[in-house]
């Protein structure tokens, strides 16, 4: 179901009670309290946290969509454990979802939160340190019993021992109130308790003057076939909302007005979805059939799921028996003329590397997508990291270069997917596309493009040869690309393979001079990409004290921190790299225009190493390897220090 809201201002702002649904007009509260003061904010950061079975991701997603529909700029950060259901009530099982919504442009889900909803003691214990002093703290008091406190490691009850004095604590008997609210639907205790997240949502929606309409619609779509469950969720949601309105405990309501974004139609999109749509779009723009070979892995699986849903676009998805079959099947598909793609995360990419070498050697276009996660080995499957850059650039046997590009935000995945395929087909080379768990699962408003206005991706195939001349599969065009000759074309029969090939003829060759020629040629092909990509842009002064050089998912945090420094009058500029191999042609000049260059990365300094190696510049690393994104505050502090 698609619904478009026109938002000239904050659409949720109503002075009169609004009828949202014909069936239940009486139950619909006005968005603004009749008797409580409403405070206007420019931004708010909220986190829901609870057990991994408590539905916190859903609560966060609903608040995100509702805020986006209300015209806010938003950024989200889901944070969940690798275990599907860790033991209930334990710290290991805590799942969280953070969202920032604002009346101006924002680029991160916020550092610390203004409001924290903790569904149990374990969630409180693991999340409290991120709540600002004086922040709103909503807890489900019913879960703070002896057992719950013990599981969270509390020796005394924080709700009563005075340790939460610095916060605006609201203790809500969420379990009891939810059970009462849904009583009429005759559900069991377990099912009733599953509605608690809707109660929590209702309460937060009231707190931030959000409309219930999008979530009520969601409930209809999701639970329509189970009327009792649907009604229970509706009741829980509304009860939570009404509780906020009536309880004396919450004295103030907030509103964050709509942001002034570029005019157009928006939708809230997650990184993995944007990437899937970008890939499908690239396939159509280049007249290819999309083939995805993939093996399920966190946090990349959602790309496989999304693509599998769209067979009406001719999308062919193959859930392979392993990572190696995933990549080699994509090579087979590319050989046949399809848009061969494989998606994975770090451990899977490591398994694919030999095959990626085959794609480099056979000079076939294909995309390898790495949604990075914490490593090494199995590492931190659900946490984010940028530690696969060297694996992408250097991780294969032999001299085996390939272009590497990285997306910077959820919506950017859509554009980067097309750009990667444009490079791959133009230069007949596999391209590695890096995202990470943070942007894959995060979401932001996306200005929806008009498909008919997107630039085509030109792909050429040689036609049949009937003159009996031998076909030269490794002949070169002006980009040093060889022809993409498709099986089925008469007269172009040829054999590809992983053995070294003689240039032009493509025959197996062990000739030493030819080998060096081919090694250099494959490198040159990749180097030539630099001539095709746009020059690197810099935000801020073209010369100065400090350049912040970042890549991938740290874009938003770096940009925000740089802007804060600039607002303080510091000489700080920001260059964010989309192209990591090769680098843009003007990058060296840019780097040499600043006294200092700092390279913030969620690894031990991988881009830093490449930059130092390439440009012989004494760049400064700033590194964090905690499975979490940078906070704007820590970046700002470091940049200020370096620029002062």
């Amino acid at each position, binding site marked *: 179901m698609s619904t478009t809201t026109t938002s000239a201002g904050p659409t949720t702002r109503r002075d009169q009670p609004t009828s949202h649904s014909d069936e239940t007009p009486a139950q619909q509260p006005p968005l603004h309290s009749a008797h409580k003061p409403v405070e206007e904010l420019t931004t708010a950061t909220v986190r829901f946290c609870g057990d991994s079975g408590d539905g916190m991701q859903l609560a966060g997603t609903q608040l995100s969509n509702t805020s986006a529909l209300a015209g806010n700029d938003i950024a989200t950060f889901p944070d969940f454990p690798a275990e599907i259901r860790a033991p209930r009530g334990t710290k290991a099982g805590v799942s969280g979802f953070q969202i920032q919504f604002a009346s101006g442009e924002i680029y991160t889900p916020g550092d610390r939160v203004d409001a924290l909803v903790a569904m149990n003691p374990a969630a409180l214990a693991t999340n409290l340190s991120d709540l600002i002093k004086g922040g709103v703290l909503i807890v489900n008091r019913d879960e703070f019993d002896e057992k719950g406190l013990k599981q969270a490691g509390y020796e005394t009850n924080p709700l009563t021992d005075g340790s939460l004095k610095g916060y605006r604590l609201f203790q809500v008997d969420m379990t009891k109130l939810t059970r009462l609210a849904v009583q009429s639907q005759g559900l069991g205790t377990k099912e009733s308790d599953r509605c608690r997240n809707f109660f929590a949502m209702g309460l937060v929606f009231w707190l931030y003057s959000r409309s219930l309409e999008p979530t009520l619609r969601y409930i209809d779509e999701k639970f329509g076939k189970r009327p009792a469950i649907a009604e229970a969720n509706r009741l829980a949601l509304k009860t939570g909302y009404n509780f906020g309105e009536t309880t004396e405990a919450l004295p103030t309501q907030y509103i964050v007005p709509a942001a002034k974004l*570029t005019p157009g139609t928006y939708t809230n999109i997650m990184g993995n979805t944007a990437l899937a749509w970008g890939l499908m779009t690239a396939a159509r723009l280049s007249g290819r059939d999309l083939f995805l070979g993939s093996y399920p892995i966190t946090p990349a699986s959602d790309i496989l799921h999304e693509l599998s849903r769209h067979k*009406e*676009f001719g999308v*062919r998805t193959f859930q392979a028996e392993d990572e190696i079959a995933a990549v*080699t099947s994509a090579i087979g598909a590319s050989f*046949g003329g399809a848009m061969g793609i494989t998606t994975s995360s770090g451990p899977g990419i490591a398994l694919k590397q030999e095959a990626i070498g085959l794609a480099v050697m056979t000079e076939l276009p294909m995309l390898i997508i790495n949604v990075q996660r914490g490593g090494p080995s199995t590492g931190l499957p659900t946490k984010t990291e940028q530690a696969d850059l060297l694996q992408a650039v250097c991780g294969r046997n032999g001299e085996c270069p390939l272009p590497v590009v990285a997306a910077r935000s959820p919506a950017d995945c859509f554009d980067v997917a097309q750009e990667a395929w444009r490079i791959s087909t133009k230069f007949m080379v596999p391209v590695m596309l890096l995202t990470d768990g943070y942007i894959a699962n995060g979401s932001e408003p996306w200005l929806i493009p008009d498909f008919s206005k997107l630039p085509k991706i030109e792909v050429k195939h040689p036609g049949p040869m009937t003159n009996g001349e031998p076909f030269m599969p490794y002949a070169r065009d002006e980009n040093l690309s060889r022809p993409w000759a498709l*099986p*089925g074309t008469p007269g172009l*029969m040829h054999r590809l393979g992983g053995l070294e090939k003689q240039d032009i003829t493509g025959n197996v060759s062990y000739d030493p001079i030819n080998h060096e020629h081919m090694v250099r040629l494959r490198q040159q092909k990749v180097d030539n990409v630099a001539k095709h990509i746009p020059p690197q842009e810099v935000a801020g002064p073209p010369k100065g004290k400090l350049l912040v050089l970042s890549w991938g998912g740290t874009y938003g945090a770096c940009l925000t921190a740089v802007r804060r420094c600039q607002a303080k009058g510091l000489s700080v500029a920001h260059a964010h790299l989309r192209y990591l191999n090769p680098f843009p042609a003007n990058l060296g000049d840019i780097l040499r225009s600043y006294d200092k260059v700092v390279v913030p990365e969620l690894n031990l300094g991988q881009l830093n190493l490449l930059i130092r190696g390439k440009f012989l510049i004494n760049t400064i690393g700033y590194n964090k390897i905690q499975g979490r994104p940078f906070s704007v505050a820590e970046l700002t502090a470091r940049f200020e220090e370096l620029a002062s």
Partner: protein
Amino acid sequence: MSTALPVLQAADFASDQEVRWCPGCGDYSILAQMKKMLPSLGIPREQTVFISGIGCSSRFPYYMNTYGLHSIHGRAPAVATGLKVARPDLSVWVITGDGDGLSIGGNHLMHCIRRNLDINIVLFNNQIYGLTKGQYSPTSPLGKVTKSTPMGAIDNPLHPLSIAIGCEATFVARSIDVNIKHLGMVLKRAAEHRGASFVEVYQNCNIFNDGAFNYATDKETKADTVVELEHGKPLIFGKNRDKGIRLHGMNPEIVELGKGISEDDLLFHDEKAPEPSLAYLLSRMRHPEFPEPIGVFRAVDRPRYDDEMGRQIATAIEKKGAGDFNELYNSADTWMVN
């Protein structure tokens, strides 16, 4: 077809590359039979693709004047899967060996067979690693002394056909490199089968494992050591065709014809048996206890992955209409900013 296709000869399928197998290698014979058989299929050369992994057998595509991809070790079935899914119009062959297909690539072989893609897999079984110069393979017999097993192999060998049958193969066959007529027949049957065809070819490595299949190729012995399977016919073998295979409970036994035992008492081959039990039992008959069966063990029909994929796409288009991108982009909740 209104226009007649040019009639091709075996030579039309030969590439301009010099064949570089060791002189006397069994691979030559398989290459020759393949080139001889292909014209009989009426499929143009450009519609035919050979995919291989790594090993002596995997050089095969270079010698064929078709499309080809000499991929990496063990992965040919996966490469072929991607190609066939993307291009169901092509005739796709996988050439592999006992090491490539059953050791490093065992996983891919297994899944490729169970998916029943319409491709043909030919496994050259020489019971040795040839290209790496003589280590034992997953099909080498127990006790086999090789460079890596100076005191004899201590791991139990695999039977390729038992593996294929266990993977729910719809077409399983065996032939022998030097039995050229039979080999040509088996390759043709494999090509004509709709679904994943698995063919094991006994192939002599005259450098590192010479004579491994002498029992099955030697003029003096082969009549007693090989039994040729024919659909609907009893299993009879021997120089004088006086011996047969009879079922004793769940086990095969060798019997002599005459002396109260007639052909009707013998095991009759049924390649179309819905259950794979008979094919499996035949795949377990090994020299020297039994004559080893050659021919088509199993040929049954089951839906093919590539067909089913096409069907799902057609159904999706029929139900939802051909995908419209603007509709897709606007499929979730949207809002306008003026």
